[in-house]
């Protein structure tokens, strides 16, 4: 090839201008494609957003569809021009000439500066409007029976817990605080949740509600939302036994005759101590968790079952149920029973067995908070009406009217309420915990006394709660568990302790002392005396016994404050 011929300037000096027809067709294509993508997403053909579970979600989504439409137009405009250019202006084989020598076009450059500017101004205005509406303060915020209450959410490595500071007082004239590991609300309630920081930054995010706010140590933040349910479709309900879950709709199997035998000793103990226990057992979702594992094994042991029976719900059991769909007649409903976190059973039940409806969505932690960040989530529980919510609320208030004196029962109540973030890290079958970050607590009452020489079981349990890093179980990383109470081993500058009242501590130790591998609390190594019915022989002396050890730590706090 001759060097002289490698460049020869044969083309013109001006910018090639496409025909008007082409420009119109291309412009229409860009507009239609952009709007089309936005409409497809809006109508659910492109699955890009979860359900809209709040008023905020609807407005945010409308803004998103505008953004998506304009964004898609930009996308098709640029990619279209790019594709057109590389096809139309590709060099022919063996063409070694240069292109035309033009350097710009003032008019075009002004146009493509002004149009994007106008577009972003319009978007900014839309965003401000949506933002203002979504964050507007409502008069009816957090009203319960016409009175304002405070709702707190605490983010703590690695769990969420919620507090309702009620306007009620208990038998000792102390204000009643409902602790819960689920955030309860109802469709149409104006909710404001105050976010309590404890250790590191977390972020309170409900994807179904399009709301997110960081929980920041040293700062008080809050988040507002209003649950909604436009489709009026509820995914969850509770079913109450006795009831058969069957493999296909229309199968009618007579219920067995009820057996007079009491299922477990613990329930009896609870019933004798707390007068409200019966009401609790029939409706509280938490109460079902401990009763169900037996329920699930028992029928299988009795006799060879009818193959059409998937599962039998015991009399009085109350199980969370996910609704999958109805049959043609509407008399039967396809459901999944959530027997516990691990065990689920799918089948059919009669429609009239369904209880009140609700939805629940994940509350996720969106800000990196450590090794268990991925497991940190909770449920937001949206009742279908204010009445259903009040049912839950009043029952929780009732439960706390008279705090149990028995440390075992108190401890169970505290641990089940999710007041402390134990469940997401530890395994404890009796409460349905299935965490992976921390050691298992099953059978802890057998081992606690022999873990560290010189410490008895109660001392060991207290020490591991106060100073987890000093008593690591082999194979588990340091720095994961919050320090409850003063920790002398905490490095300089580290948060020295989290609040845990002595009463709570005594209750939790008491409950852990019943967690033997055999299931019989009499086998415990803590030195607590249990009767044959599984209840403490002497409640008062048990409290005094544990308190004596706990006081050692109390003195330490006082010395350090």
């Amino acid at each position: 090839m001759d060097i002289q011929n490698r460049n020869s300037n044969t083309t013109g000096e001006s910018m090639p201008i496409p025909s008007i027809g082409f420009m119109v067709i291309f412009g229409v294509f860009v507009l239609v494609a952009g709007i089309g993508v936005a409409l497809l997403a809006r109508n659910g053909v492109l699955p890009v957003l979860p359900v809209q579970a709040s008023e905020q979600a609807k407005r945010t989504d409308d803004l998103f569809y505008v953004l998506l439409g304009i964004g898609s137009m930009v996308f098709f405009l640029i990619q279209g021009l790019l594709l057109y250019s590389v096809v139309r202006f590709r060099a022919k084989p063996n063409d070694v000439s240069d292109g035309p020598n033009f350097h710009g076009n003032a008019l075009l450059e002004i146009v493509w500066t002004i149009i994007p500017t106008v577009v972003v101004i319009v978007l900014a205005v839309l965003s401000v409007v949506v933002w203002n509406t979504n964050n507007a303060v409502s008069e009816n915020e957090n009203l319960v029976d016409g009175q304002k209450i405070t709702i707190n959410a605490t983010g703590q490595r690695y769990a969420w817990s919620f507090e309702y500071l009620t306007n009620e007082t208990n038998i000792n004239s102390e204000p009643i605080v409902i602790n819960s590991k689920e955030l309860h609300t109802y469709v149409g309630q104006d909710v404001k949740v105050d976010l309590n920081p404890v250790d590191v930054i977390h972020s309170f995010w409900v994807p179904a509600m399009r709301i997110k706010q960081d929980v920041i140590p040293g700062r008080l933040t809050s988040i507002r939302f209003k649950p909604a349910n436009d489709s009026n479709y509820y995914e969850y309900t509770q079913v109450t036994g006795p009831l058969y879950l069957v493999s296909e709709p229309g199968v009618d199997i007579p219920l067995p005759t009820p057996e007079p035998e009491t299922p477990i000793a613990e329930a009896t103990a609870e019933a004798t101590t707390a007068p409200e226990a019966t009401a609790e057992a029939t409706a509280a979702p938490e109460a079902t968790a401990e009763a169900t594992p037996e329920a699930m094994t028992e029928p299988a042991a009795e006799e060879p079952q009818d193959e059409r029976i998937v599962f039998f719900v015991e009399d009085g059991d109350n199980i969370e149920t996910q609704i999958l769909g109805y049959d043609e007649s509407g008399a039967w409903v396809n459901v999944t029973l959530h027997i516990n976190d691990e065990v689920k059973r799918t089948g059919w039940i009669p429609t009239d067995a369904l209880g009140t409806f609700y939805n629940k969505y994940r509350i996720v932690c969106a800000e990196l908070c450590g090794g268990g960040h991925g497991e940190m989530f909770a449920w937001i529980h949206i009742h279908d009406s204010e009445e259903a919510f009040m049912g839950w609320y009043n029952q929780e208030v009732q439960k706390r009217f008279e705090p149990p004196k028995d440390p075992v029962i108190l401890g169970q109540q505290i641990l089940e309420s999710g007041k402390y973030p134990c469940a997401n890290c530890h395994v404890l079958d009796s409460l349905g915990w299935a965490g992976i970050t921390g050691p298992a607590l099953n059978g802890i009452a057998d081992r606690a006394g022999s873990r560290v020489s010189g410490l008895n079981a109660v001392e060991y349990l207290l020490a591991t709660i106060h100073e987890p890093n000093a008593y690591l179980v082999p194979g588990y990383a340091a720095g994961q568990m919050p320090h409850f109470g003063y920790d002398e081993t905490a490095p300089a500058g580290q948060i020295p302790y989290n609040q845990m009242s002595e009463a709570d501590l005594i209750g939790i130790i008491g409950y852990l002392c019943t967690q033997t591998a055999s299931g019989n609390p009499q086998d415990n190594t803590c030195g607590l005396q249990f009767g044959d019915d599984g209840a403490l022989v002497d409640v008062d002396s048990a409290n005094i016994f544990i308190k004596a050890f706990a006081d050692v730590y109390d003195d330490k706090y006082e010395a350090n404050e």
Partner: protein
Amino acid sequence: MATISVPIGQRQPKTRMPALADMLRWTVDHKIIGMQYMVAAFVFFLIGGTLALMIRWELMTPTLDVMQDGTAYNSLFSIHGTVMLFLWIVPMFAGFGNYLVPLQLGAKDMAFPWLNAFAFWLIPPAGIFMLMGYFMGQAEAGWTSYPPLSTLFGNDGQTMWAMSLHLLGISSILGAINFIVTILNMRPEGMTLWKMPLFCWATLATSIIVVMATPFLAGALTLLLLDRVGGTSFFNPANGGDVLLWQNIFWFYSHPAVYIMVLPGMGMLSEVLSIHSRKPIFGYRMIALSSMAIALIGFTVWAHHMFTSLQPELRIPFMISTMIIAVPTGIKMFGWLGTLWGGKIRFTSAMLFSLGFLSMFVIGGITGVMLANVPFDYQVHDTYFVVSHFHFVMFGGSVFAIYSGIYHWFPKMTGRMLDERMGKLHFALTYFGFFFTFFPMHMVGMLGMPRRVAVYDPQFQSWNVLISLAAFVLGFSTLILVYNIMVSLSRGRVAGANPWRALTLEWATSSPPPAWNFDEDPVPFEDPYGYGTQAATDYLNAIDRTFGVPDETPERGGALRVASAPSGD
């Protein structure tokens, strides 16, 4: 028009290809230093890429299975992010800048050659500090290292992380000062700022950002180190500190740092698009000015990274400034399209990667504007949507530009062409592997998957499997480039001085250039992008006659054929 007035054929290449041993040698030659930057950065790219593939391997299932525990997974993405940003993209562009800026200006070296070498030699110890954390409990608070997670928890690896970034920051500042002085003082006669190649403009804008912003990173890191080892409480609210202090200072550096990591790539793109479509750059001044506009507005948008933590009343102002920055970026985008328009596009590998940049970066730009909208940001902040967005900018933008630059300037640096067929295969696998890795992340994020998790809601598994498979293709595509470089170094076609027939000055010398770059002070062409005129053709022909063009007959071995007959001179 005669611009290079030496006897024809006199300048046979007298230079040898830089050897591997040169990469380990203390030298003040900006070309060797530039390549040292690039080789070191590429090694870190391979390390960071391996970490990325381990992340994707873990995410194939919704449970924790590959990594030992959640903390180990956190270290993985923390080091992946830090290595990719600070030990790959930043030093890689510093390498291109070092190599090209003096050449494009017709200078003999950088303004401060010794300082230049010193700035580079801070990088290896910084990299060692970063990776050494593996032996003492790796940093696990993400590349953003928000306190209190990074101050109250974690191991000594976090301290090493901060010290490593300190060194890298010093290196960046020294390099940037050097660039600014070189660009402002060492241009040849006749090259005003408005006749400077756009890569130099981009490097100038970048260096101004580095000098202004990096001291803030140094400040933040110093406070972090003091909190970790000095017993202070700058970020500990229990003792009167403030955790948002870190976020504000960190992002005051790190948002402009995004432009540090993409502006040089945009400069390279301007060169490649113009040269390979044989046409002047469209709207030269607008592209140059938009770099400066981005550099300035880039300092007013940092808090858009904090829409979920910032005081609510400050969120809207930062939303507006963030949206404004889309305008200069849009100007560049349209300028590049205008450059292609009417050109004679050559589909070389360098050009393909630049076109790939245009088509992928635009997606990152669109999602950037979406993210600026506070109500929508609430949904996608700290989710895979954000992961997708910044990979479209940092990979679809910066890395595609780097790949384009490698194919474009490899001939100048080594005297050999990279293999074009392998280059096209590399492009195809990278382009599609990239798209299918990162585009589905938008959906996963909007549907509710937070970032930085090893354990996720099982409903996202099918998306994640698709993403991981595409990521493995993307990872594999890198090996093709490595192989191509290995093979081409020894057996590649001889490049000659100016294989792309480009007008900027780095091509007006032999490949690789001699120790002092030019045997005689070069005379720049009146317009660095003035393709399509007879004057330009004459200028290019004069270069060819002076330095010879490679013989394209099948025999290989580097013989340069020199034009036999002068014409026109």
